[in-house]
């Protein structure tokens, strides 16, 4: 009797069964790193005297954090990725103009698929659990070793099950579900554990919402987040998968260290207040919080569904005179779709900036850094001290509809408040 996480790990280490706590060496379907983390991996790889990667079609290097190059030092880091990719003939290097925010790009392009085991030198690698894959963030040295061997060691995690029942209200989605959960269990509430998300709400949730939920499993300390694949998954991956995929499901009698049930009927949009993702409050309690900036984008909420949601709210309105609104589609395909659907017009007519894909302001890199005393509402994933700029600035995390409504109101608020 195994959970989906245990089954995927067992299938990748040649065992019939694995148990929580067991140490395994797993075969990897994909290894990824970005312009911040790959330079250390490349240095370690070279220092080890390695000349050949395990598979030139299974290593993705994506310059997305400080790209398009924000300064000379960042340009040097991106250059390292480019050189390494050319030397090793990597098929999954994505240049500016073709790249996107890694965790939005790889599922969209069918490069990660259900049933995979993936590691990435980026903590939000856990996003692909939304497809029914086991994926987890690691450091640069782990990636260096994996580029050589195509394997990584794991301790099989214990699993926690989250069951969501009820019916979601208007302007409530994946972001609110995961913020509610992190608010409940805390930033280390799932430390070292697999977070399995289930229930009738999840079964109806589109792939974008599922990816958002799994994306933030790390914000509760989780090793991975995962959702059993179903017809919605099938519809999403069938047209884009570049490799064969496999659906794994948890046995009904699988063991969980904790099972938590939520009734989400009537739940308001949720906001994480500074300076931890666990400081979660319903939006109605925060109506007096003025904002200077609103950011819609990132690996958490930069998909086309997020763009549509924000555009729907802001259409026909103007961004508050004291607010900068910055919209960043996560990939080129999303950018193009925004043009096609007229969303770019909606944002620009409202007085928002519309940017090329980048992680940019999410980690205080560029494209919207906050000054001391400034406050942002953002659809990103972290609100630590200094995360978006000055250590004296503040970040509130929300879904795209709330970020858009707040941009118009000049304070945290709901779409229903727009006249």
């Amino acid at each position: 009797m195994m959970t989906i996480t245990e089954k995927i790990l067992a299938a990748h280490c040649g065992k019939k069964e694995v148990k929580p706590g067991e140490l395994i060496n797993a075969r990897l379907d994909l290894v990824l790193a970005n312009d911040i983390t790959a330079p250390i991996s490349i240095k370690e790889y070279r220092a080890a005297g390695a000349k050949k990667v395990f598979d030139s079609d299974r290593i993705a290097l994506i310059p997305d954090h400080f790209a398009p190059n924000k300064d000379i030092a960042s340009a040097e880091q991106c250059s390292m990725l480019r050189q390494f990719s050319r030397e090793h003939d990597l098929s999954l290097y994505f240049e500016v103009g073709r790249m996107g925010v890694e965790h939005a790009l790889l599922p969209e392009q069918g490069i990660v698929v259900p049933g995979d085991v993936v590691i990435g030198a980026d903590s939000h690698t856990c996003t692909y659990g939304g497809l029914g894959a086991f994926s987890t963030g690691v450091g640069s040295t782990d990636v260096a070793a994996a580029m050589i061997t195509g394997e990584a060691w794991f301790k099989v995690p214990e699993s926690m099950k989250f069951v969501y029942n009820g019916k979601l209200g208007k302007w409530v989605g994946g972001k609110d579900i995961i913020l509610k959960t992190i608010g409940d269990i805390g930033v280390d509430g799932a430390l070292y554990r697999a977070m399995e998300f289930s229930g009738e709400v999840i079964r109806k949730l589109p792939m974008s919402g599922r990816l958002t939920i799994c994306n933030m499993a790390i914000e509760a300390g989780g090793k991975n987040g995962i959702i059993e694949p179903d017809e919605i998954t099938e519809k999403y991956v069938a047209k884009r998968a570049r490799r064969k995929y496999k659906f794994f499901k948890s046995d009904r009698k699988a063991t969980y260290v904790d099972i938590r049930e939520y009734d989400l009927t009537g739940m308001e949009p949720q906001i994480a207040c500074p300076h931890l993702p666990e400081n979660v409050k319903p939006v109605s309690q925060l109506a007096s919080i003025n904002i200077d900036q609103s950011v819609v984008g990132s690996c958490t909420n930069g998909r086309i569904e997020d763009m549509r949601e924000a555009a729907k709210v802001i259409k026909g309105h103007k961004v508050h005179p004291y607010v900068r609104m910055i919209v960043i589609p996560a990939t080129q395909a999303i950018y193009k779709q925004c043009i096609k659907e007229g969303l770019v017009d909606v944002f620009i007519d409202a007085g928002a900036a519309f940017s090329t894909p980048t992680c940019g302001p999410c980690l205080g890199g560029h494209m919207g850094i906050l000054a001391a005393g400034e406050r942002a509402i953002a659809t990103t994933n972290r609100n630590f001290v200094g995360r978006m700029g000055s250590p004296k600035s503040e970040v509130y995390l929300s879904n795209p509809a709330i970020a858009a409504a707040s941009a118009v109101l000049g304070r945290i608020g709901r779409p229903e408040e727009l006249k």
Partner: protein
Amino acid sequence: MKFKGNAWKFGADVDTDAIVPARYLNTSDPKELAKHCMEDSTNPDFMKKMKPGDIIVAEKNFGCGSSREHAPIAIKAAGVSCVVAKSFARIFYRNCFNMGLPIFESVEAVDGIKEGDQIEVDADAGVIRNLTSNKTFTVAPVPPFMQELIAAGGLMAYTKKKAGL
């Protein structure tokens, strides 16, 4: 192996952005990263005050957030000899073993150490001694595989051997 130094105390959930802010991640040079070690933490002047060999002592979930290995690299390059915490975030924990920053888990030690106390960590004996208060605490044992990694000289040395490089 023994580590001796003065304790610098930090609270719960110290994140990797506090350890080394992302705005400095346009380099991976350890010396550059070390300049900004703990800059966005509750003790922004840490680098001005600390002395080589000193020890970071923190509450639960130290190193949460990003996977950036720049965080343990900055701590190590700053001259911190080791980190003692009630618990560590998963990726940070893994990174420390991979790149060689000694870390120790002990709830009782963290509760029994004050800022500025002189501390000795005896890794082989599995104890932490507070030389200021003359108290001794036990350390959570290091899992066997992690011991194997350390004995091999870190993950890359282990991988080199395995891959026959």
